[in-house]
């Protein structure tokens, strides 16, 4: 790491201040990464408790249903809101988007710091739910009337959402202005990295949809603590109102996760196969923006069994299916980028390659769910779990991990690759399949979600095995993943200080963050000369 610089007029500043109180986008990015990984670790431990509890019939590890619900609440809410969204749109976007567009920082550095602090305090608030009496037990969806009538402290859920939402909205404002005004002179819209495009798209989604979630949970807060009647049918409110508002945000939110993950993948694949993005314009304008466009009109697919009018469910069946068109275009571009490439393998590329499998498996298993007639049975079963763990928990998380390995030399000046990285990759890859395939199978036979016990299924057999057997396999898988995640955590910390030193551009990429900055970049990113580009420059042009 470069030592703090002192210039005339600036007294030497203690290093901790320059880290903790930083307004530099790279250091804020690192703060996001640390926070997100901590959140992932804790929520992952909760997942292990869940798996242990579900492993056998009856109650073994938790003391009450309420405790299980509290743990599952934490797992779902924190994984989505405090791990993936901050990991992708906080860490990755913060650190690399300004570098990729040749900016010295974001447009509003202090607001950026403000966002990261909102995120940290939100994690603190979420963690407090284990400490306070009556922590929230309402699942990450927080549906009323339960969330209003429960004795648990729903306000913690609401404020966690508020803090994170506010953080994301400000992030969105910040990055949109940054991309509009701070691109290096000469950089046109069609010369942006895919990651930059996907991040912009994610921020546009955040900007438009988070407010709706924020008002939904605010109304929840008022209903519970001030006695208003928004979701109370006896006084003219409606329980479905909440669900509509909630999913109006939370479906697009899955693309807030999905798109930046896809962007990271594109960048890894293009760099490692030294190839241009296949059909860049289609990927950007049809793929990314098509997904954004459709994402706002499909939310009712989460309400297929909620008693919505039939015609709405059918309408959303069609729109939901149509998402496969832009996403399909994106996958084709991803595949095409491999075509006639010159692929080098390293840990980042291995994660990227496995993501190709995960995106297919997770995405295609969304297709049965898109048909309301299928979902009438599949909804609320562990089939849904398997679907979204594959596409979200695994695809997006693997893309993020790939990204960490890919950018590790940039952030630290050292490689994170090595035997531990390879072993842990395989542990993870095998682990996720062992964990979540069984959930597909029992889900199709009706294993419900959010159950700590499944006594009523004790005699049901599939291919000669009981549900319990499948759960046992899944638990073994989960512990394999745990090992596969623990190892790289240690590895990252070790490599950051002791790893093999890397040059400024170890992968010979053409992208700005590699070609124009030191590893790690100092304050101001690009030294004294501003980056200026010509119209022939492209982050993906290797053939010249």
């Amino acid at each position: 790491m470069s030592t703090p610089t002192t210039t005339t007029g600036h007294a030497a500043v203690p290093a901790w201040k320059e880290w903790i109180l930083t307004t530099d986008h790279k250091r804020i990015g690192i703060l996001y990464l640390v926070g997100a990984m901590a959140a992932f670790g804790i929520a992952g431990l909760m997942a292990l408790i869940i798996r242990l509890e579900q492993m056998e019939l009856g109650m073994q590890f938790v003391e009450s249903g309420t405790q299980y619900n509290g743990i599952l609440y934490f797992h779902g809410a924190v994984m989505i809101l405090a791990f993936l969204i901050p990991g992708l749109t906080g860490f990755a976007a913060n650190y690399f988007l300004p570098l990729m567009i040749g900016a010295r920082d974001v447009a509003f550095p202090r607001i950026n710091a403000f966002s990261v602090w909102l995120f940290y305090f939100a994690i603190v608030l979420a963690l407090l739910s284990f400490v306070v009496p009556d922590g929230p037990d309402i699942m990450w969806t927080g549906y009323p009337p339960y969330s209003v009538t429960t004795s648990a402290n729903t306000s913690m859920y609401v404020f966690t959402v508020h803090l994170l939402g506010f953080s994301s909205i400000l992030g969105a404002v910040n990055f949109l202005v940054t991309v509009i005004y701070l691109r290096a002179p000469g950089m046109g819209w069609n010369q942006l990295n895919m990651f930059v495009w996907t991040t912009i798209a994610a921020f546009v989604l955040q900007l438009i949809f988070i407010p709706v979630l924020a008002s939904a949970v605010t109304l929840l807060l008022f209903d519970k603590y001030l006695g208003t009647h928004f979701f109370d049918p006896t006084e003219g409110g409606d329980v479905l109102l909440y669900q509509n508002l909630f999913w109006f945000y939370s479906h697009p939110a899955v693309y807030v996760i999905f798109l930046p993950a896809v962007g990271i993948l594109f960048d890894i694949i293009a760099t490692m196969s030294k190839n241009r993005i296949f059909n860049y314009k289609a990927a950007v304008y049809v793929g990314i923006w098509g997904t954004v466009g459709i994402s706002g009109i499909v939310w009712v697919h989460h309400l297929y069994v909620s008693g919505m009018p039939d015609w709405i469910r059918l309408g959303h069946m069609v729109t939901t299916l149509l998402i496969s068109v832009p996403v399909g275009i994106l996958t084709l571009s991803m595949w095409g980028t491999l075509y006639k490439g010159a692929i080098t393998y390293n840990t980042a590329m291995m994660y990227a390659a496995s993501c190709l499998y995960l995106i297919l498996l997770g995405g295609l298993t969304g297709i049965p769910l898109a048909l309301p007639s299928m979902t009438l049975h599949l909804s609320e079963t562990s089939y849904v779990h398997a679907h979204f763990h594959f596409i979200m928990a695994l695809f997006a998380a693997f893309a993020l991990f790939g990204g960490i390995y890919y950018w590790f030399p940039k952030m630290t000046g050292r490689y994170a690759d090595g035997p531990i990285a390879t072993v842990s990759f395989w542990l993870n890859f095998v682990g996720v399949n062992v964990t979540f395939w069984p959930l597909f199978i029992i889900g199709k036979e009706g294993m419900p979600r959010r159950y700590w016990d499944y006594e009523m299924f004790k005699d049901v057999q599939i291919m000669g095995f009981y549900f319990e057997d499948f759960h046992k396999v899944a638990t073994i898988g989960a512990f394999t993943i745990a090992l596969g995640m623990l190892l790289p955590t240690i590895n990252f910390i070790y490599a950051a200080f002791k790893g093999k030193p890397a040059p400024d551009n170890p992968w010979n990429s053409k992208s700005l963050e590699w070609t124009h900055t030191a590893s790690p970049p100092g304050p101001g990113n690009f030294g004294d000369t501003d980056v200026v580009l010509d119209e022939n420059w492209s982050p993906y042009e290797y053939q010249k």
Partner: protein
Amino acid sequence: MRNFLTAMTALSVGAMASTQAFAQEVRNPAAEWEELWNTVIIDITIIGVIMAIAAVWMLIKYRATSPDQVGTAKRLTTVQAISFALIPAAIFMADDFYLAAKGWTVWNAYRRVPENAIEIKVTAYQWYFEFEYPDGTETEELKMPIGEPVVLRMTSEDVLHNFGVPEYRVKEDVMPGRITYIWINPVEAKETIVQCAEFCGQNHSEMTTKVSAVPREEYDAWLAKIAAED
């Protein structure tokens, strides 16, 4: 535009005619679900396998042989670029509409309640279901006469619940302030369970009860017995 409108009208008239034909017979949603499942799974498996093979093939074939080798893909011409967007988009859309049409048909089976269906009222509480039969009998388990469609009109007295019967491949939320319905066609004798499938608090995973399809005589006798007990 006019052509388009005419085509749409023709389509919808056709759709209506065919749904009317369907309305005559009593369908079996659970069986149709299974068929649809197979169709959809085959469909997505084909897509998945093709794409996966392509990926694996390229990942192996295009490995770099020397560190400074670069990719050799050509830049697409405008025509190529547009074709590579439009043709796949058309194919994907075709598949989507195919699946949508299939899904829609089965959807009608689920939502069109046969006219002669026996109507049973379901009320959900934390954490049990209560059934009220046409004759006013109230029980905590569901029995249906074989071969006679049953429609459940459901509501909740407290929070959200969900009436899910995995064997019959059906579920629907039960909520306060609204009445939702599902219908079941019990074609053969069967003893199974209904479980609550919408999160409802502490004992959510213990909210379950028996569902059985029995011959008409047994059903009548059972109802009579319960009525006598009260």
